[in-house]
């Protein structure tokens, strides 16, 4: 199954912010993590990830610096800012609304009860 390009693009920001909220990371690791979490279904390109990271940096949601962690190459690490955390919270609210609505539609009101109990982290 391929996820449509528009949907990938729309969901990329909260995903990146969510991963960075777990801890500082660099491009390749973020891509690996997305791949892992989606079970290989989300196939991001470098052309999606790096410009996105640069945009988030320009908007002030993340910061970056070049650092060498012991025994590894010098890499450009990204760190989420307070503003980025706010943005993540906002995106989470919006996505929750969207996902909840879709569930209401697809599963019907009767079945929705147990599903809303899914922790928010699972939606990201």
């Amino acid at each position, binding site marked *: 199954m391929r996820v449509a390009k528009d949907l990938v693009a729309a969901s990329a920001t909260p995903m990146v912010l969510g991963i960075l909220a777990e801890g500082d990371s*660099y*491009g*390749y*690791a973020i*891509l*690996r993590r997305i791949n892992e979490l989606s079970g290989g279904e989300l196939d991001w*390109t*470098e*052309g*999606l990830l*790096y*410009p*996105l990271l*640069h*945009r988030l940096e*320009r908007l002030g949601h993340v910061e970056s610096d070049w650092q060498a962690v012991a025994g590894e*190459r*010098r*890499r*450009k690490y990204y760190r989420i800012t307070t503003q980025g955390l706010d943005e993540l919270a906002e995106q989470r609210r919006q996505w929750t609304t969207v996902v909840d609505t879709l569930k209401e539609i697809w599963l019907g009101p009767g079945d929705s009860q147990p599903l809303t109990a899914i922790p928010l982290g699972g939606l990201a």
Partner: protein
Amino acid sequence: MTAADGPNELEAQFAQWRQYVQRRRELRPSDTEELEDHLRGSVDELVAVGLRPDEAFLVAVKRMGSLDDLSREFALEHSERLWKQLVLSGDTVGSVAQTRSRRDLLIMVGCAAGAALSVKVPELFGMSLSKNAAFYGPNVGLFVLPWLAAFLAWRRRASLAVIGVLVALFALGAVAANVYALAENSQSVVLTAIHLVIALWFVVGLAYVCDDLRSSRRRMDFIRFTGEWFVYFVLIALGGVVLVAFMYGTFNAIGVEPETFIRGWLLPCGAAGAVVVAAWLVEAKQGVVENIAPVLTRLFTPLFTAVLLAFLAAFVVSNKGIDIERQALILFNLLLVVVLGLLLYSISAREPLAPPGLFDNLQLALVVSALAIDVLVLVEITGRISEFGTTPNRASALGENVILLANLAWSAWLLLGFVRRRRPFAALERWQTDYLPVYAVWAWLVVLVFPPLFNYR
């Protein structure tokens, strides 16, 4: 890290990839580094699952996808990078180039300030711009152009011998401007003023080509430099006009008259400084931005050709003869200069190996019609001169006309040969660059020999 076998080979592949990616304007060096790190991560992982390093490299590069797509995505986020940034933005260039350009900037500011202040130095000795025109007219080039030459000589790391020659020539210019006692209303003082600037501009040219004096390519570069310098100077001047207008308006609104300052300081010092700044801009943007002079040439060559042909047709039809007034020779001299400029700047931008095309035919038409018009004018005017005797103005105008005519006539011949595929285009280019010293020699002649020759009239 990557596997033990062939790490050098892998590094070489990475180096090659880096070079390839760095050519993309959309990708800054830091992006390249980031992408390289990504590629290395990918390679490491593939090697860990059993691929050989070179295979892993190929797979990793393939996974990254086409560089075109990648650059396009980067361009969407960083659209400003597609607008080539000239100078002053400062960041992201390589550190060596950066320190070099910063030092250039400092030297340029020094030279521009020197030129701006030099213009005011004579005031310490009681001279003033408005009252001593006979002093300032011939000398203005001497205040400004040495600074420009110094800036260029510094950039080219000129040898001591070249610096010596430059100093000697400027000294010679200073002698020529001041040793003859020329009256303020004499023809010679105006001629000296005009021709000394031209002569000194060729001295600047010497500083420009000093790393390779005999090279035709370098001389062509100087022609390009001159054209671009002029365009930038005009642009700076336009900005200056806006500045002056606002300064005048705002200060007047609070009852302060800024006129003395504007006339006495802002205009002369600003113009002098702009001479150096424009040169620095041309040097800094070389190869970064499309040259504008050849673009203007392309626009105006057909238009000028049309006007000249129309003039010839009208001349034949009306059958009235050219009304030779005092200014006619100068006007037609200027026409030849413009035609020569159109020719020069299209040569400067032309690919020498390209076959002759429509534009070359157009240019031939332009040159030939200009020649035809000029011959008509010369025929009319030689009679006049032999009738009334010579003055410095007439002699210099006639001399210049002959020089330009000779150049254009031979250019037309070479251009004809090229259009008929008998001659390479390089012959025309060579002819123009070889001819440059002729203008310089003539300008020096007018400055040095004309005043005594015509009894300082």
